[in-house]
């Protein structure tokens, strides 16, 4: 009996502790001042966000925190309404938009690309056509001395060396952009593999993150893989030129990535830039987006919280902030994209009324 009593008391004690924890959470008043703005999502633009949010926190004395938990995590966090904004490398499909509890807006913040990096003795500069990309990454071309590679790269000394494909083992926006491109240029790829953040690879080795892929390539003779451009540019990794839709071989650079966004853009900014029609554009480029709810009154958020969130995003797409992109190896938004982004931001409401 005494033991039972002891057990009960203990359970009640635990229950009390738990309930106290809940009671501690104060509901925010709708007229409260915003103290912090929280975002989470894609790791690809994280160096850019870290840099500018630090500046913003200093200038506006408003703390902006960003968690690089992956695009999927960013979307989930926004769905669970625990962040002010999410971030994703892939725009939400119509189906995923319908799954969200409210209307979601996309705001592009900068551009990046995915590059093909390789490890060959003598570090020759290589050119790839979409057909070569298909052959190599689907395991049909297995040796560097394959005549198909030599035909596109006349004069390059190609060794008798097995090709080792390296891919991302973790789910990643980088993989999505790469496979989105491959699906557009190769019907075989589209039929057999498809586009996604993680794939069923026919050949190769999986490595975690950009550093993992880059490290494996640099350590393995004959390896080829794909890496986020911001990482490849920062590390000075040799990368291939890729033939775009116009037939030009384009070396990835901040200019050629920015140039890929010169085409038409829908009003909701959800557009894929891979296999761009722009003549000078690098064909495996992409926007990266912030996502927010159109109606900002959720989870007892205050009006000021909503206003500050939109103000922050307006500041990100402003000309001065866009200049910061190149310092961390991203490409700035073209003017037309900035105009579209601002138009999207103008749609944001709080309790149905437009924000000032």
């Amino acid at each position: 009996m005494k033991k039972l009593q002891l057990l009960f008391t203990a359970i009640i004690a635990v229950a009390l502790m738990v309930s106290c924890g809940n009671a501690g959470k104060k509901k925010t008043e709708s007229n409260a001042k915003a103290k912090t703005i929280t975002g989470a999502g894609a790791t690809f633009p994280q160096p850019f966000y870290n840099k500018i949010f630090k500046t913003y926190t200093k200038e506006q004395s408003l703390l902006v925190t960003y968690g690089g938990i992956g695009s999927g995590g960013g979307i989930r966090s926004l769905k669970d309404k625990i962040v002010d904004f999410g971030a994703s490398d892939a725009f939400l499909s119509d189906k995923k938009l319908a799954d969200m509890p409210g209307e979601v807006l996309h705001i592009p913040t900068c551009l990046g690309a995915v590059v093909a990096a390789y490890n060959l003795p003598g570090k020759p500069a290589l050119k790839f056509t979409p057909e070569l990309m298909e052959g190599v990454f689907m395991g049909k071309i297995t040796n560097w001395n394959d005549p198909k590679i030599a035909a596109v790269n006349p004069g390059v000394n190609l060794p008798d060396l097995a090709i080792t494909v390296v891919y991302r083992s973790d789910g990643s926006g980088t993989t999505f952009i790469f496979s989105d491109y491959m699906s557009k240029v190769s019907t075989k790829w589209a039929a057999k593999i498809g586009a996604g953040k993680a794939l069923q690879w026919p050949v190769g080795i999986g490595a975690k993150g950009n550093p993992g892929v880059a490290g494996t390539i640099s350590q393995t003779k004959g390896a080829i893989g794909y890496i986020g451009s911001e990482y490849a540019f920062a590390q000075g990794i040799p990368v291939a030129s890729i033939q775009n839709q116009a037939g030009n071989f384009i070396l990835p650079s901040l200019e050629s990535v920015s140039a890929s966004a010169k085409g038409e853009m829908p009003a909701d900014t959800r557009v894929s830039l891979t296999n761009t029609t722009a003549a000078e554009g690098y064909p495996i480029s992409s926007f990266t987006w912030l996502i927010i709810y159109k109606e900002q009154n959720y989870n007892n958020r205050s009006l000021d919280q909503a206003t500050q969130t939109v103000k922050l995003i307006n500041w990100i797409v402003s000309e001065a902030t866009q200049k910061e992109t190149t310092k961390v190896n991203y490409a700035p938004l073209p003017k037309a994209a900035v105009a579209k982004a601002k138009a999207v931001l103008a749609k944001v409401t709080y309790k149905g009324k437009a924000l000032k």
Partner: protein
Amino acid sequence: MNSEKIFKYLLASSGILIVLIAVGIVATLFVGSIPSFKEYGFGFIFSSDWNPTEGRESYGALPFIIGTLMTSILALLITFPFAFSISLFLGEYFKHGKLPSFLRSVIDLLAGIPSVVYGLWGFYALRPLISELGINAQGFGIFTSSIVLAIMIIPYASSLGSEVISMVPGSLKEAAYSLGATRFEVVRNVIIPNAGSGIFAGYILALGRAIGETMAVTMLIGNSNKIPAGIFDLGNTMASLIANQFGEAEGLKYTSLVEIGLILFIITGIVNLLGKLIMKKLSA
């Protein structure tokens, strides 16, 4: 209430809290894996397809269950001769002195090294060696991971063993010696039967550690989501798959990963249970 009682309640409530947390973890895994279970049923365990591409999604746990068991059991086999020798050396042959205490510190140090450091060492030092020896082309795979795992689990496998070996009653050993037994005979006929269950417990602990290891394995196994063709092939383990793919997972993939977590939990549970059963048999 006097302080005696308060102390007692405090102890009891913290104990119950741990139980609640453990139950909560199982419940979360269980609830999280229901959608995947509804979709695939028990076929999930036997399907070897892992295709996360939207529109052709299909998930199965078999390659990762096999990968996990292969790496951890191979690691245990590799670690066994070393761990056993160390336990005997420290527990019986050289209990005291500078060399044994140095050896002990080094082994303790092995347990304290973060697994990512093991992964880095494997990546930069062991992998080139494996590929140079021609074991496989890139040096990644089950075998490479198992070697690194074997080194990681030596402290777990050996420290408990040396402890129980040193606790074998001196009177028993002396009796054997007085009957004319050699040292080897004492080890074989007195120490091993006496300390067997404790030594074995150490190996179970080590196996559990190898099954759950994530980071070092991810860096070395090649992360190929197929059933490995042999110990020199690439593969993937359950823990490594979850760590890799959880960040971007949603929908069916998310719940399939949770179900893999549940299976991992159950396998670890079974290993521990089996270990306890065998220990009981050995000590009886």
